């Protein structure tokens, strides 16, 4: 079974600064998908960014970018120019490339989350 580890329960950053959230995972698969989701107090999980394991290029979405190190099984999220609206729980998630295979492979495996605080 795959596991996802987020070692930082809480991070704090000044507004307009850059922050990096770390995530490591354990898998025996060679093809898979990785995600970062944001969960504000409203509880709604919002997709921030997605990375396919077969792609060497790191994904970027505006102020959000990832550092994907496949050999190290590391998938960190960098938020540039932090804004007050970025304050939320951030979850790293893994999805197997297999489908309809059962054993939980069809769902996302989440880390425990990192609580990001933005200081004005």
């Amino acid at each position: 079974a795959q596991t996802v580890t987020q070692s930082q329960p809480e991070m704090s950053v000044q507004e307009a600064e850059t922050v990096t959230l770390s995530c490591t995972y354990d898998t025996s698969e060679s093809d898979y998908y990785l995600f970062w989701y944001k969960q504000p107090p409203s509880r709604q999980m919002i997709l921030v960014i997605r990375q396919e394991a077969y792609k060497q290029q790191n994904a970027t979405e505006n102020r959000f970018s990832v550092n994907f190190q496949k050999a190290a099984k590391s998938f960190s999220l960098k938020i540039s120019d932090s804004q007050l609206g970025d304050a939320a729980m951030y979850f790293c998630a893994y999805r197997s490339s297999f489908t309809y295979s059962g054993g939980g492979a069809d769902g996302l495996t989440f880390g425990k989350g990192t609580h990001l605080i933005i200081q004005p």
Partner: protein
Amino acid sequence: GAGVSQSPSNKVTEKGKDVELRCDPISGHTALYWYRQSLGQGLEFLIYFQGNSAPDKSGLPSDRFSAERTGGSVSTLTIQRTQQEDSAVYLCASSLTGLAGGTDTQYFGPGTRLTVL
């Protein structure tokens, strides 16, 4: 367009009662997922539907939990004889397809917070 909706937003029930949680996926999405989010266990995957069928129910915590999906759309998660450890936020997500690839991105609803007294 409309996102994933869930009802009720909050549910308080007494131990031993049955509860039904509802999920309305994004129109046209064939895949639907249920997750549970609790302080102790974090986010757990419960069950996945492709159309109306669930290939694997092994993620359901106990036989008191069941889920169904009808018409390839609305899904209900039923918890019978609720226990205090069932207290959690139950999240539903849908994706265009269940196939790994660009169409499998999961979009989440706001969740139902269940409190069992």
